[in-house]
């Protein structure tokens, strides 16, 4: 162990200069020279700023690491124990008080919020669903799925095309889309689940891209890049348009003036109930043998197989459940937009959902809910930084993996104590 105290400024300055030179080589051409047709213009100012920031940053980090505080920080970082936090056996979760309040607030939102806020919240909830679905696959079962957007697309196009060709509405497509996505998950999953993590990631990525390319190129069936329109949900047959196709529309039936916000309120309420249902199901599942099997398989596959777990079935169930949640989210997305086209289902979407799961904490339900709202609502609020959104996601993913690979919200698990009188 190097017990030397005090800060070696010379070394720090050397580090900073090397970092600055590298930054000059790396950022120099791309930032310093702006291509303009076959010509270019120079931007020395931007380049100088970036190089200065890199040098300063390296210098500060170098000093910090050498200081006592920094050493302690590094030591803690190296010693940190990843894994679940086990609560005391008699620990009472505060969720019992918080949850009813959240549900009441959630049910009141559509009646107080403006239409714009409502649309943003609906989008947030759709991503909560997507995050929960992917969380089963990545967070609990540890299978990196980079093509999750494929199941989302199946749900969304299921509603749009089911309406166009078969005349099926929102309510019939909601369960059908979930089943369809689950079947797609099984078809994809069955052959690929025997391979190990990285290959699985690439195969699922290829699968997501294949779905998108087929949707784009099969113009006779899907109308290609032009997209398809999707129907709105109905309330016992009452429609939310100004003029109903059949029967009376919602506002005439109740004698209300027409307001386009009604449909968002209705979509919101259904979505909210569905999200609560999915949350409940997931909460129960993680405490059932199948949920334990997912997590066990994530931690050590070989040990699980030695203990007699059928790894393909366990993984397949995680994959199908995740996929069906994605399909449900897709149905809501289609009905909320009223329109779907392939450009909504690019790889970036998969990466965004993955970022939600990673930021929220792999396997943590609460974390995923919070992260989904943060990552979808924040870009709406910071419109002027819209260009930097993807950059922020990327930096977030790298930094989170280095700093807190298990996410911001740690998974907690109830502890058990031996009963009084039990034989030790």
């Amino acid at each position: 162990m190097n017990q030397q105290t005090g800060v070696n400024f010379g070394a720090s300055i050397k580090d900073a200069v090397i970092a600055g030179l590298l930054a000059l080589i790396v950022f120099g051409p791309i930032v310093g020279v702006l291509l303009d047709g076959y010509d270019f213009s120079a931007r020395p100012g931007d380049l100088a700023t970036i190089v200065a920031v890199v040098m300063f940053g390296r210098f500060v980090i170098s000093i910090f690491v050498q200081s006592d505080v920094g050493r302690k920080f590094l030591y803690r970082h190296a010693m940190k124990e990843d894994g679940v936090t086990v609560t005391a056996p008699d620990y009472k979760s505060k969720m019992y008080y918080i949850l009813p309040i959240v549900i009441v607030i959630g049910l009141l939102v559509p009646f107080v919020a403006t239409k714009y806020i409502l649309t943003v919240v609906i989008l947030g909830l759709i991503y909560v669903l997507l995050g929960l679905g992917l969380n089963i696959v990545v967070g609990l079962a540890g299978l990196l799925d980079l093509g999750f957007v494929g199941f989302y697309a199946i749900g969304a196009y299921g509603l749009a095309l089911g309406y166009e060709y078969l005349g099926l509405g929102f309510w019939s497509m909601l369960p059908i889309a979930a089943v369809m996505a689950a079947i797609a998950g099984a078809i994809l999953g069955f052959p690929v689940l025997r391979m190990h993590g990285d290959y699985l990631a690439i195969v699922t990525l290829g699968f997501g891209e294949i779905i998108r390319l087929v949707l784009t190129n099969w113009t006779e069936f899907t109308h290609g890049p032009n997209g398809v329109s999707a129907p709105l949900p109905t309330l016992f047959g009452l429609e939310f348009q100004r003029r109903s196709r059949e029967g009376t529309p919602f506002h005439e039936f109740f004698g209300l003036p027409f307001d386009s916000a009604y449909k968002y309120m209705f979509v919101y309420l259904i979505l909210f109930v569905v999200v609560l249902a999915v949350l409940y199901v997931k909460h129960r599942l993680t405490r059932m043998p199948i949920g334990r099997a997912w997590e066990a398989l994530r931690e050590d596959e070989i040990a699980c197989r030695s203990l007699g777990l059928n790894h393909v079935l366990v993984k397949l169930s995680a994959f199908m459940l995740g996929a069906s949640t994605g399909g449900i989210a897709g149905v809501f997305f289609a009905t909320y937009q009223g329109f779907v086209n392939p450009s909504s289902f690019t790889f970036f979407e998969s990466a965004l959902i993955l970022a939600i799961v990673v930021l929220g904490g792999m396997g943590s339900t609460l974390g995923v809910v919070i992260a989904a709202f943060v990552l979808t609502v924040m870009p709406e609020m910071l419109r002027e930084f819209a260009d930097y959104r993807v950059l922020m996601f990327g930096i977030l993913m790298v930094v989170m993996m280095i700093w807190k690979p298990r996410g911001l919200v740690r998974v907690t698990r109830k502890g058990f104590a031996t009963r009084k009188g039990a034989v030790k």
Partner: protein
Amino acid sequence: MDIVLQQLVNGLTLGSVYGLIAIGYTMVYGIIGMINFAHGDVYMVSSYLTAIAIALLTFFGFESFPIIIFGTLIFTIIVTGAYGWVIERVAYRPLRNSSRLSILISAIGMSLILQNYVQISQGARQQGIPTLLSGAIRFEVGDGFVQITYMKLFILFAAFLGMGILTYIIQKTKLGRMCRATQQDRKMASILGINTDRIISSVFVIGAAMAALAGVLVTLDYGAFDFYVGFIIGIKAFTAAVLGGIGSLPGAMLGGLILGLSEALFAGLISSDYKDVFSFSLLVVILIFRPSGLLGKPEVEKV
């Protein structure tokens, strides 16, 4: 008949480019067992660097083709190599002992960073470079003809030269020997005095340099590019690496050629709309039926 021959020629050049990029995937996978998801975007950066180098060289009054080509190649390879080093240092080295999932997610993050960084600094629109080398050789075949442009010949020549130099480095030099040792057993190699961190860095630099060579060649031939080109070509090069057997250097080159040829034939004879679907399906099928590829060794998972 002439279509088939023409597509074979196109497929050969395409395949040699895939092979060059696949080298980066396969070497990194062989040495630290990770899929360098950002590799396709390193290629994308190199096509911007190509255009910038050509613009700079023309600005300083260099007109002749060889000078521009060699200037561009040297500039692009050095700067892209620096990218490879920095990416490894910033995003992967801190995660050396983490789970594979963490490293892969970090690599995806790096890929997003590179794409968005280039988009912000150079704009989202498509960029292009002027044609530097025109002209072609034509062969009469039956009723039609087969055309081989000089640019395509140059690509084939440069790609095979690059692969030859790399094979020499890996097989004959001290650096190559250390690379192979680290690939076989990282712990043992470090016990025997090899600075494995430095070897891993140099593997990233070599991979980036090969991607840079591919970037220069494709950009010179095709002329147009944008910040998103790295994604599709990255997956295809990865397919090539898997096809040849990931971790195997000759496998990457062979896989690249096979993928390029079959994709070109599919595009020419069946449907060019679905050629990407074909490549991705090929990837899925190979991974299911022969995950170790053509020349790879089957992986045995140890406890």
